[in-house]
């Protein structure tokens, strides 16, 4: 099963096995990773699952839809490596993906 590295803003690493087909957000919520709230449940309507993707992984991800970019306007302190983790679907290719959770989310 692919392993996803979730890093809290304070540097604490959570290495979590997430099944193919789940989103990076679901992997976080099911494993109680703090800072990913996913208030809207993954419908790209709230920006509370915002993460910073590690630079070398960023281009390997499926491109953002317009709706995701719009929603990122609402996120706290977005940068060019910002994504909504509900839109990142785990596959074998993403084994080792590293995402950092913003300091302030909810």
């Amino acid at each position, binding site marked *: 099963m692919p392993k996803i590295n979730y890093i809290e803003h304070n540097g604490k690493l959570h290495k979590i096995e997430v099944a193919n087909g789940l989103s990076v957000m679901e992997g976080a919520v099911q494993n109680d990773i703090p800072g990913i*709230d996913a*208030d*809207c*449940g993954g*419908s790209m*309507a*709230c*920006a*509370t699952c915002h993460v910073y993707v590690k630079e070398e992984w960023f281009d390997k991800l499926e491109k953002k839809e317009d709706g995701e*970019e*719009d929603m990122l*306007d*609402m996120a*706290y*302190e*977005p*940068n*060019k490596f910002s994504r909504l983790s509900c839109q990142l679907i785990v596959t074998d290719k993403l084994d080792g993906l590293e995402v950092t959770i913003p*300091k*302030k989310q*909810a």
Partner: protein
Amino acid sequence: MNKTDALIIGAGPTGLFTAHQLKLIGLDCHIVDNLDKIGGQCIELYPDKPIYDIPAIPECSGKELIDYLIKQIKPFDIKFHLSERVEQVKKEKDHWIVKTNNETTFLTPNIIIAGGVGSFEPRKFTLKECEKFENKSVFYSIKDKNIFEGKTVSIFGGGDSALDWAIELSKNSKVNLIHRRDDFRGAQATVDKVKELAKSGKINLLTKYQISDVKGSEKLESIDIKYDEKETKNLKTDFVLGFFGLIMQLGPIANWGLNIDKKTIEVDTEKFETNQKGIYAIGDICNYPGKLKLILSGFHEGALAARACFKLARPNEKYRFEFTTSSKTIKKRLGVKSD
């Protein structure tokens, strides 16, 4: 003091349909919502997005669904208290005394929390320093636009609120409009208007910038904005406005002595009652084994919670289950002719 059989907190789809269910079985109710309009997440988060899983409605938008629900409760007299947030819930004998931030009070045996993921609050700047200027020179909504006359106003955001206010305030103020990217998600006509005003120098448009500091001791004097996460620019400004939409906060519900886990309230699946007798939770905010955060689940939960309310509101009467197709009493309540 408003005496009522049931108080519903939240005017989203679940709250609206539950009001319908309460009225059908002959109970009265009031609805409180923190937003200034009816519809909850459907209206605030996705009014135009199509929904495909409402039974018997193949496709409808968030707004259409709410319009249908409002139409469905039209026959009934239901009192809405919008732009009010329930602050306090206190037990008194067999009843609850409920107070809002507007000092509206209710006396009721039943409280139904249909609060979604909590109440909507404006999303704020993350900068700690912004707090000290909040509601003095840093605002997230506008109550009186006259205070900006002749002043410099720096507006952050890329949606319709930010753009509309930039256009409006540019008439009588010096406006900086700052957004994190070149694209705006506002309506195209509004975006065009902003670009036109930027060209003619009426709006100082700064894209790919984000706020990095606010300066001033007593009074706000200037802000630092950062370009593309690199160089910083200082802007003199009297006011800062942030329009980043709304976020949901559980708020005072957390203090009512309910069993809360990860922002959701634990309930049973017979009455959808919480650990407090006479307080129910339905829709996205409730949690039980197998819970699905679907609108249709909220409808089912509301129908059952409404029946549970009957027992506490009419302790000396027996609830009798009836169908809308055949019950004369229900038809009378709906104001439709019986055969």
